[in-house]
């Protein structure tokens, strides 16, 4: 019973790390692209 929360938190940490690992570069790419896209409407 006591090991379950530790296991769950371990899985949650892995999930957060894995999604950040791919999410941060992708968010950076989208941000840079949007900055350039703004020029289209200026």
């Amino acid at each position: 019973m006591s090991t379950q929360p530790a296991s769950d938190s371990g899985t949650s940490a892995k999930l957060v790390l894995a999604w950040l690992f791919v999410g941060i570069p992708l968010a950076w790419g989208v941000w840079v692209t949007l900055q350039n896209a703004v020029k289209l409407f200026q």
Partner: protein
Amino acid sequence: MAAAFLDRSHSIAGPGFSRWLVPPAALCIHLCIGEAYAFSVFTKPMSQALGVTAPAPGDWSVPDLGWIFSLAIVFLGLSAAFCGRWVERVGPRMAMFTAALLFSGGLVIAGAGVAVHQLWLVYLGYGAVGGCGLGIGYISPVSTLIKWFPDRPGLATGTAIMGFGGGALIGAPLAVNLMKHYAGPTSTGVAPTMVTMGLIYLVFMLVGAFIVRVPAPDWKPAGYVAPTVAQKLVTTQNVLVGQAVKTPQFWLLWAVLFLNVSAGIGVLGQASLMIQEMFGVAAAAAAGFVGLLSIFNMGGRIFWASTSDYLGRKPTYVIFFALGAVLYALVPTFGHIHSIVLFVLAYGIILSMYGGGFATIPAYLRDLFGTVNVGAIHGVLLTAWSAAGIVGPVLVNYIREYQITHGVAKADAYSVTMYIMAVLLVVGFVCNILVRRLDERHYVKNLQEATQ
């Protein structure tokens, strides 16, 4: 020992493994190989590799450099077609590892080719070796994701294939910044940029290979009850790849993908020039337009693929082709009334459906042919992409040149192209409508025996 770690049997998920770790593993691969869409950022600096500030005698021509991307797409299709069964057999970890070595190795070889100014080495590196990495990497997580998400196959494959669309958004600014960093009075910085990107992508892709797991044979999501009776197009049985390619349904879907991609890819390559000639915007703003289309292309992959879980695959493609044809037919009108907002919006929606077509097709294949060989069948189907990669741009360029040489103004030369693209989509609409459930005789009778 290391080889055993890569084996399918060593990548079976243990109890407590979250299936939501598999999409980021797939994204590690697709975000890297999607860099291929950004290859054009290398074209100008590679065309003046010797002259540095301007092309010099002996520098490569732009058409010669254009073959690098075309070769990569051809090898993508060929490797996906020929390695599909191998990927199914060895599992996603070995496939992702191999894709990482090939794609990264291809970039490093291409970088060496640029450094010694040997174009054949760039063709071999980025086109052939890297192209094989693209093909194996593209299909490597698809079958695994479908097995992890039997309840939401569209969402799962859409997430991964979204990464391929998003790869250009990362790859383009990364390459530009690295070239700026490495450039000097005697170098455009392309060679070290390619090598650096090869190494960065190797690490990123290996992380994906490390994370990925296959579900245990008896695993299913909590609360999920697998349907026992086939519903409309969705089968509960399986077809092997050798049998699938003999069915009209496979070739109708091949045509569906080919026509959807041909219509999108040709225009994607002309987007910058098109908006400059139709609306007179500056090159920098046109680059912003291309970037915006990339975001729609990426977003459409996850949006349409996950929507198809609710609408069904066939109705989703009905929307792609019907709405796409109407929008293509309206684009010249938006140009004539000089409405840049409507023009950009129309192209955004068209490109979202172009991406959506890629991302929804694996789930369509699963519906028709079952899960057992879906990766291999998907691999063979991707030859449609290779064919469209050649036909689409050639068609658009040829029609435009024909119009201009016959006295049509540059700004108006795209109208006929758009109408022809609309016709392509109407043909795709008919192909999709003709897709029917598979005949019982195609299904595997004894699955265990057939897959041994």
